[in-house]
């Protein structure tokens, strides 16, 4: 059987690539070993949003009185919170299955292995083995949690995101190692449900990829909610007891020991590059990830790689878009441009939320730009005050010379829904002038984006 394209991996990278390839008239086969939608949809982005939604609603109930509401007798059922989250994943995974059918993508459940020369062997989940061939093969096998020596997850006391997603009971205390998006989101979720959470971060600040000011703002806000944050610190070892773990945490050369019920290890990812037959190809692996050019082509002709199995950022929407560009390039679509990493937004769904696109202030300066910075606090935004969400900040960074929007950074309620405004601006190559002349609806929190643009040019209105 010869297809135009075989895609290995049915996560947000692989399945979106499959749909786009099909739209472009290709005959597509997708090989997925466990569940369509990948980690994102089944064990990542989506189910955590369901959990966090429950936590948010619970927090709102706690603050009901400040909205003039009376709530007698409220609480939560952990089992039902988890059930809801699993239900959301199941519903969406079924949705992806339907999309594959609608787009005439052949889905094979099994584990694929490259055989070289455009051939792929699939050990199907029904125990049979088949061989496929196609002119083009896209590797979209994704990644899995990284395990640091001495801190290896065991699934019982030391969790990865997978166990953290489906707790049977709530621990009383929890150590989260790593303050990237995954670590901070789980910390925020468990903290909201009343768990005593400690976050340990090796860098000197949390969410180290974010702008320093935003990261500091978020830290203060999270600490106000009861989170304990230790930065510039390393978890040296974990000593497991029957139902608890004692962590040795070293900060500034001083080690101390603290005991927690559970530990979540969220120290990054490793690419799934093993057992997929890379040795049968000329594909090159660099720093544990597959090396690709700007069109996602590997060093083996006809073999491509997208998403988490390649270089960062490791985000679902980066994977999807890389795949789209990759197959459009294969199909010879006119005027396709490589993905601009500066135009990929990043979102963290803790409370308050964090979202950003483009360069941080420090990175813009390091890149040699002469910059103009604008800031606007939610305190000056009518909608935020009305919603009882005055805690937030929007920061914009412009190239003083050309007016190009270099970066935008936000912390506060709803910012993950708003960042695409700045992302769209960047994609359309806006300058400050178009942003200033964009009419923002009143009253919305998005008006603070407008104000942060105006502020960069000394024209802020409500501050």
């Amino acid at each position: 059987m010869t297809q135009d394209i075989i895609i290995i991996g049915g996560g947000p990278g692989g399945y979106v690539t499959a749909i786009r390839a099909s739209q472009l008239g290709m005959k597509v086969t997708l090989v997925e070993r466990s569940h369509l939608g990948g980690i994102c949809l089944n064990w990542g982005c989506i189910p955590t949003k369901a959990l966090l939604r429950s936590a948010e609603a619970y927090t709102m109930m706690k603050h009901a009185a400040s909205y003039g509401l009376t709530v007698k007798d409220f609480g939560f059922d952990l089992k039902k919170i988890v059930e809801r989250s699993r239900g959301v994943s199941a519903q969406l995974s079924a949705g992806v299955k339907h999309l594959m059918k609608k787009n005439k993508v052949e889905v094979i459940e099994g584990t694929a292995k490259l055989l070289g020369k455009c051939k792929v062997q699939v050990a199907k989940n029904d125990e049979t083995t088949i061989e496929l061939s196609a002119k083009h093969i896209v590797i979209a096998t994704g990644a899995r949690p990284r395990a640091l020596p001495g801190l290896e997850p065991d699934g019982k006391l030391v969790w990865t995101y997978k166990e953290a997603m489906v707790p049977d009971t709530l621990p009383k205390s929890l150590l989260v190692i790593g303050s990237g998006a995954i670590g901070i989101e789980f910390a925020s979720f468990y903290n909201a449900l009343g768990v005593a959470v400690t976050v340990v971060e090796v860098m000197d600040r949390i969410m180290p990829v974010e702008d320093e000011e935003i990261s500091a703002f978020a830290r203060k806000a999270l600490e106000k909610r009861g989170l304990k944050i230790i930065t510039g610190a390393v978890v040296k070892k974990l000593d497991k007891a029957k139902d608890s773990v004692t962590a040795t945490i070293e900060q500034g050369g001083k080690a101390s020991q603290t005991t927690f019920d559970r530990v979540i290890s969220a120290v990054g990812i490793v690419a799934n590059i093993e057992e997929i037959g890379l040795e049968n190809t000329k594909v090159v692996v660099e720093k544990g990830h597959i090396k690709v050019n700007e069109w996602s082509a590997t060093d083996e002709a006809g073999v491509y790689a997208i998403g988490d199995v390649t270089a960062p950022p490791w985000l679902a929407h980066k994977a999807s878009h890389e795949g789209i560009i990759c197959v459009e390039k294969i199909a010879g679509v006119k005027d396709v441009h490589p993905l601009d990493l500066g135009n990929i937004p990043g979102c963290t769904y803790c409370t308050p939320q964090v979202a950003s696109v483009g360069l941080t202030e420090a990175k813009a300066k390091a890149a040699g730009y002469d910059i103009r910075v604008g800031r606007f606090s939610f305190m000056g935004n009518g909608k935020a005050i009305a919603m009882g969400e005055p805690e937030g900040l929007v920061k914009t960074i412009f190239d003083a010379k050309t007016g190009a929007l270099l970066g935008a950074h936000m912390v506060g309620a709803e910012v993950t829904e708003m960042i695409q405004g700045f992302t769209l601006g960047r994609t359309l190559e806006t300058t400050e002038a178009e942003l200033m002349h964009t009419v923002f609806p009143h009253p919305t929190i998005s008006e603070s984006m407008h104000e942060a643009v105006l502020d960069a040019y000394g024209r802020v209105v409500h501050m």
Partner: protein
Amino acid sequence: MPALQTTKDRIIASPLAKRLAAEKGLDLKLIQGTGPHGRIIRADVEEAATRPALSPTLSVVQPAPDTGAAYDAIPNSNMRKVIARRLTESKQTVPHFYLTVDCELDELLALRKKINEVADVRVSVNDFIIRAVALALKKVPQANASWTNEAILQYRHADISVAVATPTGLITPIVKAAETKLVAAISTEMKDLAARARDGKLRPDEFQGGGFTISNLGMFGIKDFAAIINPPQACILAIGAGEQRPVVKHGQLAVATVMSCTLSTDHRAVDGAVGAHFIKVFKETIEHPYAMVI
């Protein structure tokens, strides 16, 4: 109605690309866009800025590496690419038709000789042709037009683009409102425009726009040719060489100086009869040239 605002004439560029181009003094019209639908994006401007091509005074040809190939690869300048894009678009999307007439030049040549004996400026046959086109457009304004989906734009003035060959490619400086100018004035203006075109010193407004184009290859001895329409204009007039040919007059064979001219016309905007009417008026003006000097 503004002088000329068709979609084809509007430069589609991102805000940042526009600002960068202005800053670097680059003409967006000469930059090929690679964004969606040919939109000029930042990368295109940055790329253009690294090339000498956009400064028309400089030769764009860089020595090709000696690869032992059977050809030399001469990199395309942005101007070359723009010419390629616009003419391909024209030939592929504009329904051309062609009308050819022969014009006797003897009276015009005699008149030109007398004028050049007494006047300060030396006028050329081409200056008369520009004037004749301008007068013909005044009488047949339907030929001074552009097609758009919503309307046919009929220009109020005869802004005549005149094709000039330069070391980097073709450019068409414009004699504006030519119907208001006498031959001597057209001659002076044309000399200045052509010289500056060859030096790459035209301002954008001196070569962008225009309602009608003249392309003259007479000086190369070309007898007759059919030019590709210069969009969004509807007509282009191709001028061949004036040469002595046998003609029949009153049943007798005679010798006359004859010049063949071919009008290429966009049938969407100008019908056959209108084109024929225009070229008939043009022929009469050339053959009875005294009307041109009053």
